[in-house]
């Protein structure tokens, strides 16, 4: 039996969270020999996300105040690390990621060929599903170029928050994970430490309701912050 933990970070997702939990729960039928637990990390939501998550019967990690997506996901990694899970999957609380892809996403982890699997919306040549807005795709392309130069591997969807990790990676990320906008930086962190990264084609949806955590102006700050973090990472001491 493989112990799998699905981590769902949620900030003001009272409209979506129950549906996301339900759809993850339904994947049990396509995941044989897997002990699946779901943990919702409530990142100091101002709405009734906590109540919605608790009434859906999953484990809830309730942060006392908003830490940012990275701090929330890391809480999930720490839970996974403390409770000895073999695989951890991170999936957004807004319904963008389809849990139907879970078996495909964790396959390279289970077979032991890779340490990390990233769900990419750009790998499928049919370009099905939500491909993000034009300006955001420029940013994503920039990350693809920079990251591929630094870690010598082409990662097409550096901003994807739909990822699977093995226990070795969970231990590392439980100890060190960026607080905000963590996804592109984590690719660099793991790539430079020679973790084996796989990309799996997935289809993403547009968010079901609520608002994205990254608005128009914040996008610029996002780009600058992440680029700086990536740059610094290259020179960081690796333990």
């Amino acid at each position, binding site marked *: 039996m493989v112990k799998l933990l699905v981590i769902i970070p949620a900030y003001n997702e009272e409209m979506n969270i129950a549906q996301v939990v339900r759809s993850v729960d339904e994947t049990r039928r396509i995941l044989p020999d897997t002990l699946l637990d779901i943990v919702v990390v409530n990142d100091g939501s101002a709405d009734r996300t906590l109540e919605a998550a608790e009434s859906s019967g999953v*484990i809830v990690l309730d*942060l*006392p105040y908003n830490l940012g997506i990275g*701090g929330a996901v890391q*809480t999930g990694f*720490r*839970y996974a690390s403390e409770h000895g899970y073999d695989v951890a999957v991170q999936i957004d609380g807004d319904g963008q990621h389809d849990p139907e892809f879970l078996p495909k996403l964790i396959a390279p982890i289970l077979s032991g060929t890779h340490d990390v699997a990233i769900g990419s919306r750009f790998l499928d040549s049919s370009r099905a599903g939500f491909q993000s807005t034009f300006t955001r795709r420029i940013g994503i392309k920039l990350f693809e170029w920079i990251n591929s130069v630094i870690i010598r591997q082409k990662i097409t969807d550096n901003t994807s928050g739909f990822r699977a990790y093995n226990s070795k990676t969970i231990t590392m990320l439980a100890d060190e994970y960026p607080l905000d906008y963590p996804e592109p930086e984590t690719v660099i962190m793991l790539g430079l430490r020679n973790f084996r990264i796989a990309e799996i084609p997935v289809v993403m949806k547009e968010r079901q309701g609520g608002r994205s955590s990254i608005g128009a102006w914040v996008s610029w700050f996002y780009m600058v912050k992440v680029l700086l973090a990536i740059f610094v990472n290259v020179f960081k001491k690796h333990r």
Partner: protein
Amino acid sequence: MMNQETIEIWRIQVVAIGFSLAVMLFVFELIRRKKLREKYSLVWFGAGIVMIVFSVWRGLLDEVAHFLGVGYAPALLFLVALFFGMVLMIHFSVVISDLTEKNKTLAQDMALLKAELKKMKADERKPS
């Protein structure tokens, strides 16, 4: 015999020394009242001492100004003060970053413990 100019420089020297001493005394008082940690007072004392040295020893200021090619020596005092201001602000940024990291860990610990406690309570209610 003192001319007008010497008197004015002497005045600004007294003001500068007095001000530096006042700041250091204020910092000392904050530590005594436990409003400021010794660790964070060091940069303030360092800045105060350097400012006093430059205020008392006018020759040193002129010398350094001449060496750096600063025409008006007292302008160098501003530069030194500005430098310490920068050092203090960077120091604060480092302290804030450290606090942010510790704060994050603490919040995460709390969320994990709350979940653990809830589970323990639920297990207790169940008859074994």
